[in-house]
Each structure stands twice: as C-alpha cells, then as structure tokens.
C-alpha cells in the first residue's frame, strides 16, 4: 500500500517535471517563431534609421542608428530611389483612400444585395444569387487583359474610380451577410410590420444595427485586402499622383541595385506596413472573427 502511494507521488512529480519541460519547449518554439516573423521587420526598421552609405556598403548593424528623422522626412515628403517616385505622404493617402473605398463599397453593396436576396421574393432571385456567387471563381488575376480593356473603354484608366469600382463586387461579403440575415428571427420582421416599418426603414433601423459586429469584422479584412492590392493598381494606374504605396515601394526598388537609396526605401516600407498592421493589432478580435467567419 505504502509503496504504491510513494510510487504515485513519484509518478506525480515526474509528470509535473515533464509538463514543465513541455511548457518550456513550447515557449522556446513560439519565441523562435516570433523571432522569424519579426526578423525581416526589425532589419527594415533598423535600416530605416541609418544613412544610405552604411546600408549600401552592407554594414547594417543590428541596432538603430541616428538618421531616423531625416530618412522618414525624405520618404514622407519627397520619395526616394533613383527612379524619383512619388512622396510617401501622397502614396499613403492614395492607398488609404483606395482601401477605405473598397472596404466601404464592398460592405455597402453586399449588404444591399444580401438584403434583397433574403428578405424579398421575386422572379430571378436565385439566378441573381448564383450570378454573385460565381464571381468567386473569377479573380482579377485570371482575366487581366479583358478587364483592362473594359477599363480603357470606360476611360477609367488613371482614376480612383478605376482603382476601386471593379473591386467592390464581393461574393464572400454577400454570402456572409446572407448567412447572418437568415438568422434574424422572423418575429422581428413581423413586429416591424405591425409597427409600420417598411423594408427600407427595417433595413436602416434593425438589420444594419444588428449587423455591426459583422460589418466591423469584415471591414478589417477588406481594408487590408484593399490596401494590399498590387496587380490591379499596377495595371490601371501609371499616373504618379495616383500611385499606391505598395506598388510605389516596389517601383522604388527597381532591379534592386546596391546603389539604391535604401534608407528611404526602408522607411517607405515601414510606412507601407504600418496602417494595415495597426488595424490588425488594434482590432485583433474583429480581425480573427472576420477571417474565420468569411471562410465558413
């Protein structure tokens, strides 16, 4: 009996030890993961605080230098690189405007079309639904040339509308809202009818307020989606005043010569990352929810 009990105690101690070791390993691996994730960012951050010569000679130290203010000032106000690209301030403004318009546009037209499909019965309802659904299968990337030709025909090249409008149709957002609308109890609709609320009033007073969490979650995802657009702005915009920061950054690098003004480029890279990363970190809860919901 006693031997058994002692065995048990020994077992428990051994188990506690195993658990502690396992936790340590977990910390170790996670820290390594975080490090691998952070390394490129750290290098870029550090690089953005040294002068071009230090970087060009390949002597980037692991700690920040003293040229942060001038580098960011140059990037912000003048732009950099031998290709004399647009100032980051203007590019950030373009990116922000594009991302906000895409996110808001996608949410608005998806809310409306999901509302029509769920709360009305009309000829062609399912046909329209499938039409929206099928756009999932037609990403811009697979229809580059003909879409570009449409843009030319509509004289949307080099316009903000040209950047935004073709990207605002969204099957995922429509599907998400449809799914959510189907869970709104019938009694709300009936109560609204008894109260005398028409469909538009019900939409404004009940459906949209009930959807706020979904809207917030989607907004985070769509803002990042819009901000990170690359191929489309590359095609549609060649006017420097409309350059977005992601495309502009890659143009600054050109072929990647060592003689580039790397300090300014790195500062621009940091500026290009900052808004979407801030959105994800500050709105982490919405972001995670938005991701997992849209893919359901």
């Amino acid at each position, binding site marked *: 009996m006693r031997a058994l009990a002692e065995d048990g105690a020994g077992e428990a101690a051994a188990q506690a030890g195993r658990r502690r070791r396992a936790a340590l390993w977990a910390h170790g691996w996670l820290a390594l993961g975080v490090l691998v994730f952070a390394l490129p960012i750290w290098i870029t951050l550090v690089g953005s605080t040294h002068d071009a010569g230090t970087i060009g000679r390949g002597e980037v130290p692991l700690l920040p230098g003293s040229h942060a203010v001038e580098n960011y000032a140059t990037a912000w106000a003048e732009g950099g690189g031998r290709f004399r690209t647009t100032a980051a301030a203007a590019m950030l403004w373009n990116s922000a405007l594009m991302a906000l318009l895409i996110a808001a546009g996608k949410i608005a037209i998806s809310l409306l079309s999901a509302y029509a499909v769920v709360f009305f019965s009309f000829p062609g309802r399912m046909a329209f639904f499938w039409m929206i659904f099928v756009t999932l299968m037609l990403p811009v990337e697979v229809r580059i040339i003909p879409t570009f030709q449409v843009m030319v025909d509509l004289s949307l090249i080099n316009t903000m509308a040209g950047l935004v409008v073709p990207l605002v149709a969204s099957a995922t957002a429509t599907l998400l809202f449809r799914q959510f609308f189907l869970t709104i109890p019938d009694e709300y609709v*009936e109560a609204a009818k*008894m*109260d*005398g609320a028409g469909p538009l009033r019900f939409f404004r007073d009940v459906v949209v307020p009930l959807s706020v969490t979904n809207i917030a979650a989607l907004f985070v995802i769509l803002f990042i989606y819009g901000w990170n657009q690359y191929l489309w702005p590359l095609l549609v915009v060649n006017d420097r005043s409309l350059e977005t920061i992601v495309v502009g950054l890659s143009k600054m690098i050109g072929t990647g010569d060592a003689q580039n003004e790397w300090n300014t480029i790195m500062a621009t890279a940091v500026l290009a990352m900052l808004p979407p990363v801030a959105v994800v970190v500050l709105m982490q809860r919405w972001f995670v929810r938005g991701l997992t919901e849209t893919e359901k």
Partner: protein
Amino acid sequence: MATLELVGIRKSFGAAGVLHGIDLSVADGEMVVIVGASGCGKSTLLRIVAGLETPTAGRVLIDGRDVTPLEPAERDIAMVFQNYALYPHMSVFDNMAYGLRIRRVPRAEIRRRVEETAALLGISALLDRRPRQLSGGQRQRVAMGRAIVREPRLFLFDEPLSNLDAKLRVQMRAEIRRLQKRLGVTSLFVTHDQIEAMTLGDRLVVMHEGRAAQIATPMEVWARPADTFVAGFIGSPAMNFLAARLAEEGRAAALAAGPVLRFADGPRPGAEGRRLVVGIRPEHVEARAGPEALPLAVDLAEPLGSETVLHGHLPGGESLTARLPGGLAPQAGEVLPLLLPAEALHVFDAETGRRLDPLEGMARR
C-alpha cells in the same frame, strides 16, 4: 376600441388546408381566447387577423370595415409575440417608442406615452436597459408595453406566456387580465394552455384541425362541451369516455362495461342500440357502492393530499380516472366500486363525436 369580425376565413398552404372556414365576432372590449393543440391553425388565424398572412378566402372586419387587403401597419393593431421580438440593439424606451416614431408622433407625446405605459407596467426603472439585461418577466412586460403604448384598436397575443416559468406565468396571467379589463381593448389571445384559456377569456374558441369546435364562455365549454374533442381537451385530468348504446327508448345508456345508466335530464334521440360515448369528468366520479356501481381495478393511485387521483381499468378493459377526496388511499391492485352520477354524464354520438342533448320539450326541467 373596436369590434372584430371574421367571416368564413379559410387558409391553405399549397394543397394542405390549415383553416376550413372560421366565423367569429368579438364584441368591443371583449377578450377572446383561441385555444387548441399545436398545429390546429390557431396561430395562423391570429396572423391572418394581424395581416401577416393573407387568407385564401374570407374577410376580416374591424369596426365593420373590411381590412382584409390592408397591410398590418394600416390595421391599427398591436401584437405581443411569443418570444417578445424585442429589438436587441434598442433600449426598452426605444423598443416601445419605435412604432410611435414611425407614425410620426411628436417627441413630447412619445415620451409622455412611453412613461405612462411604463408606470402602468411597473417598468419605469428599466427604460434605459437593453432587452438582454432583463429577466423573462421584465421582457414580457416590455413586450406588453410596446403594444399598449400604441393605443391600438385591437390587441393580439401569440402565446406570450409560454416562455415563462410556471410561477411567473400565473402572475403575468392575472396581470394581463387586469390590464385588459382596465384598458378595455378588444383582444385576441392564442394559447395551447387550457388553464390560461379558462382564466383569461371572456369567451373561448376551441380549435381542432382548422375548425372552431366550440365558441362559448369558459364555463359553457366546461359544462356543455360541444363534442368529444372539446370535452377531452378542457379539464384536467381529462374527461373519461366510455362506450355505450342507447337503451330504454332513449332514456338510458347501456355501458359496454355493464351497468345501464338512466339520464337525469331526459331522453336522447335515436334508435335503440345507437352507439354512444358517455363522458364523465374524473372529479364527478364517486367512490360508493350501489346497484349501478362499476368495479374499478386500481392500477395507480396518486395521493396529492387534498385529493387522490386514481387510474384504473374496468372489466371490459376501458380505462378510467377518478379524483376522490384525500382520505382515501387504495393500493394498486385493489378493486373499488365507483358510481357515475346521472346528472354529471355527457352524452356524445359515437360516429360524429357531437354532443347529444335531450329532445326539446321532453326534458324534465
């Protein structure tokens, strides 16, 4: 305040008929309860009155005006929903004020009416809260308040008490009755609960398979049920039914279980040997010996203190329930003599299930 009239209301969904012609008129200030098992069409009937469903045939008249083609909002009706349907993102005040705002009632007037109604319901302290911060009973009151504040011509209640626990239900039942009497608003109340129906209604509509089996006062429905369905549905424990045949030129029923029972109130029409169903409520059964006594083999005795409920079977195999005074405590397996008093018998035709009343003029009374 208004009168409500339903004329030949029919409804079918596709091939399935749900309502087969309902006629009903509700007087000004009256509370009519529609009661029936689930699937009998009672909710559909209420939704047709509300304007949420369109009848396949028939008309709905409010104050004599045909409102059948009108939208719900144009009928000046308020409805209390089973799950209350309170908008979760609005405060109690906003929930109650919503209908008034849509009708463009002036702000001061809205405030006055909401506050008055809240005081009436004892929810003045809750006006700033959201529905999810409220208990079931409080939500129920807010749902009522939303209906009352509109000052509609007609109240509709769709099983509003079914989500509450038993104690709260009794309390809210009394409150609804009190409010309805005080406000004097014509009301239609749907429930599946016979006690709710009996206590709330000025009159009942007992629905069965899309028809109104009986429309009468609660006491009338209890004392003179129109058919075996109503008889079995109202009253608890349910009425006993025994197979019988008409005997002695209509003056008596010969039970399949043996005894011949003479009617107290007069002969029933029909040929000798006509198949009958004789009904008797458990509380009317007496535990006494006598020449017409039935021997009940007790299967189960439920002593409830003030009374004892016996479940057993008769020699022919028919089962019978009796509610007896509390002192008696027979054991399962015992055989007990029971008397069925003549004045408590209900006689129904076995084919149609309809009540058979004594022939006119031949009644003794």
